[in-house]
Structure formats: C-alpha cells, structure tokens
C-alpha cells in the first residue's frame, strides 16, 4: 500500500467520497436491478426525530424486511454521526448502511483534514449531497431516505432535517418521521408534540409514536419482549449523544402496554 499523494490541482480536499473516486473506488456505483428485485432486498423502516427543550430525540425501530419476511430483528437504523449529531435511515438497507458509514467517515475526515469540525448546517448539506449521489440507484428502487438531527452550538438548540430521494433537504421545526410507518408515527407526534417538551416527555412521545407505527404497519417492529429487543432511542443536547438504555425502554413499554390493555 502506498501513500495517496496528489498534485495541487488534483487534490480531493476534504471530501472523502472524492478521495475514494481518485483511488478508484466508486462509493455510489451505478446499479442495474429491476424494481421487483429491489423490493426483495432488506428494507429498513420507521425512524423519527423531534425537538425538545435543549436538544433533539431520535428514534427508530429495529426491523428490516425483505418482501414479506422479516430479515433482521436487531438493525441499528439510528446511529451517532459525531459528538453532537445523529443520523437515522429508512430505505434499502444495503445502500443505507453504506451511506451512514460514509457520512460518519466524512464528518471525521473533514474535521481532521481541515482542523475543525463542520457546522451542523454544513453536515446536513453533506448528507444532502450523498443522497443526491445515490439518485441513480434510487431510480432503480434502491431508495435511501435519511433524517439528520443534532444540537447546534451556534444557535443553542436542537435542529432536524429530512430529505427526499433526490437530495432535497428540508429543515423541520418540530418533528419528522420517515419510512413505511412514518404516517402513523408522524400522526402521534403531531398530536402529542408541544413547545418546550422536557427530555423525558419527548422520549416517551417517541416511544409511543413507534408503538403505534408497529401496531398498524407490518414492516415496523414493536418492542420484542420475548428477545429483549427494543427500539433505539437517543437524545442529543449540548453535552452530546446519549442512548436511552434498554431497561428504561422496557419499563416505558410495560407502561404503554398496560394502558393499551385498559383502553
């Protein structure tokens, strides 16, 4: 292995994707799959994000489906992007996981090459460009639709963005949901969201939104008490990313299930 060195005009700068292309690796290769094939690949489903007083909550279920079957029960669709932000992803699992990996690498790579981290808005824009690079694959059915959220130290609050498959980037003020269960989860958020929610209340609302999505959408996984698998819920505030642990989620879902029984 030799060290990659470039002449001044040829230097890929702080873009990791550009560096990959220079050394002959295409991070978003052109694909030739039929729409029916694309349906049979594993898909990741429902993710959401909402703001609370001082930050954002991100949450996602754990199920991946391939056609009519459940292909994975423990998929991590919500991951930390860097200290103060996270990314959640719905769509075809393969390219989605690759995009998350590339996005995490890009943020850290930029920080190291340039000597300072990107602004939150800069990060959201980078993800937008990655989604756009994936457009040819998306047209073939390999769709990737992420949510990006984080704490913005420049304005002192949580911010969140959703994307369309063409790379369109939309900053939302309050909450956002994506994936097959997004209408169900989004409705719960719409009804339950208030200004200046506390962190605890926002976590509870996120858990309820995923519960309702899993209750009526076959592709969204609910809490799996039998195997001890719970959705991923994480909060991001000025102190950084922290994931809600499974014991706390188990207790929360126990309460929700008790309420549902007595409806």
């Amino acid at each position: 292995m030799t060290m990659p060195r470039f002449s001044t005009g040829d230097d890929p700068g702080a873009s990791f994707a550009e560096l990959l292309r220079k050394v002959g690796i295409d991070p978003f290769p052109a694909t030739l799959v039929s729409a029916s094939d694309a349906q049979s690949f594993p898909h990741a489903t429902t993710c959401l994000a909402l703001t609370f007083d001082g930050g954002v909550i991100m949450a996602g279920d754990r199920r991946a489906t391939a056609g009519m079957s459940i292909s994975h029960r423990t998929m991590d669709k919500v991951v930390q992007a860097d200290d103060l932000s996270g990314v959640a992803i719905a769509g075809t699992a393969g390219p989605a996981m690759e995009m998350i990996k590339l996005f995490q690498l890009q943020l850290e790579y930029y920080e190291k090459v340039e000597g300072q981290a990107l602004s939150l808005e800069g990060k959201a824009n980078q993800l937008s460009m990655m989604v756009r690079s994936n457009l040819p694959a998306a047209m073939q059915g390999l769709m990737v639709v992420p949510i990006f959220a984080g704490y913005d130290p420049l304005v002192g609050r949580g911010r969140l963005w959703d994307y369309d498959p063409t790379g369109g980037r939309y900053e939302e003020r309050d909450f956002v949901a994506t994936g097959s269960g997004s209408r169900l989860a989004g409705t719960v958020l719409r009804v339950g969201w208030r200004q200046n929610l506390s962190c605890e209340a926002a976590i509870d609302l996120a858990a309820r939104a995923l519960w309702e999505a899993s209750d009526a959408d076959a592709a969204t996984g609910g809490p799996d008490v039998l195997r001890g698998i719970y959705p991923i819920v994480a909060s991001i505030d000025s102190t950084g990313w922290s994931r809600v642990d499974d014991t706390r989620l188990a207790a929360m879902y126990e309460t929700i299930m008790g309420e549902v029984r007595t409806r």
Partner: protein
Amino acid sequence: MSMPFYVSPEQMMKDRADYARKGIARGRALVAMQIADGIVIVAENPSTTLRKVSEIYDRIAFAGVGKYNEFDQLRVAGVRAAELRGYQYSRNDVDARSLANQYAQVLGDVFSTMGPKPLEVELLVVEVSDVVANDRMFHILYDGTLLEEKRFCVLGGDAEGILKRLEPNFNDNLDVAGAIRVAVTALTGPERTLAASDLEIATLSRNGKRRAFTRVSDDAVAIALR
C-alpha cells in the same frame, strides 16, 4: 562547448543531507513521552492555528518539525492512507507501523531520487495501546530513515541538547502534568522560559475511547506549569 560538471554521489547525498538538516535545525523542537496514562506530545509552537501535532486516526497521532507546508501535506496524506485502509478493511487494521513505513518511503524517495530538493521535515507517528509495552513511537528522518523509539524522543533543532536535559528527569511514573513540566524544562534549557501560549500539547489517552487524541488547553497547561 560547455562541460557537464560531475558531482560524485557521495557529495550529492551529503549536500542534500546538509540542506535538509539546516532547514530542520532552524525550526522549534518537540518532545514525545510514554507515560502510564498514554502518550504526551509537547511542541514549542506559538501559533494556535498552524498545528504541529494532529490526530491521524483513532489511536494514532502525528507530529512534524521543520517546514510547515511540507509536513502538513504529509499529515493529510497520512489521514487519507489511514481512512482508506479503515474504510476498505476495518478500523482495527490501521496501525502506526504501516503508516510510518509509508512515510519513510515517501521521504526516502524524495531525498534520493525524485525531488528537486529533500523535504526539510522530521516526523513522528505514535500509536497508543492498552499497555505501555504495546505503544509505538516511530521517528522518521528527512532521508527516510525509520527509527523506533521507546519511552521518549525528541525531534527538531537542538535535539541532542534537549535529550540530555530530558533524560535525567524522565521516569515512567509521571502523570500528564508532570510529563508536561519535564518536557518544558527540557525544551527551554536554563536560559529561556516558555508560557502556555508558546506550547502546543496533545495526548493520546489510554482510556479505551475510540478517539484517543485530545488537545490540552492553554489553561490546563498553565495549571500544570504553575
């Protein structure tokens, strides 16, 4: 007709080595030390934006002395080499030894054949591990000579004098603040003093976090030097 003048290979190498050594000797020095908490790198550097010490990868740091633009290009090349390897294989497959070899190859090539002039830099590539015995400190000279150092090492101008002052004060039980004091005493010598703002200090911590690299703030340095 003009005569092509002959320079013996020995003379050419000596001239090139003298040229590179002079360039490096003009720059300010830096010290790296292995201690129980990790690896501490202390550089004399009044600039807060043009860095001599930087993060390469999870547990690997880079430091350079000599000409800034030359070692900074090499730093970026190192980040790229490490990130590409981690992307294609796994984060665990990125190691300091391989990076140091690649640096040695680049410097050696430029020195002996490819460049119009040798690079006026000396580099340090260090990797922290769970135990001191598995730490790695590689020192790469302007001509591609690759040295593996243990416990401590010095790069840059007046390295021998600094080493002489460092050796008697260094011991394996230093904490970070103690290591900073020992390094600063060695860097300054009896005639000079250095303030926190004249220093650039970073550590690779043995704390098990993925990114081991942290910069020590001027405030923390001032407290350590008090």
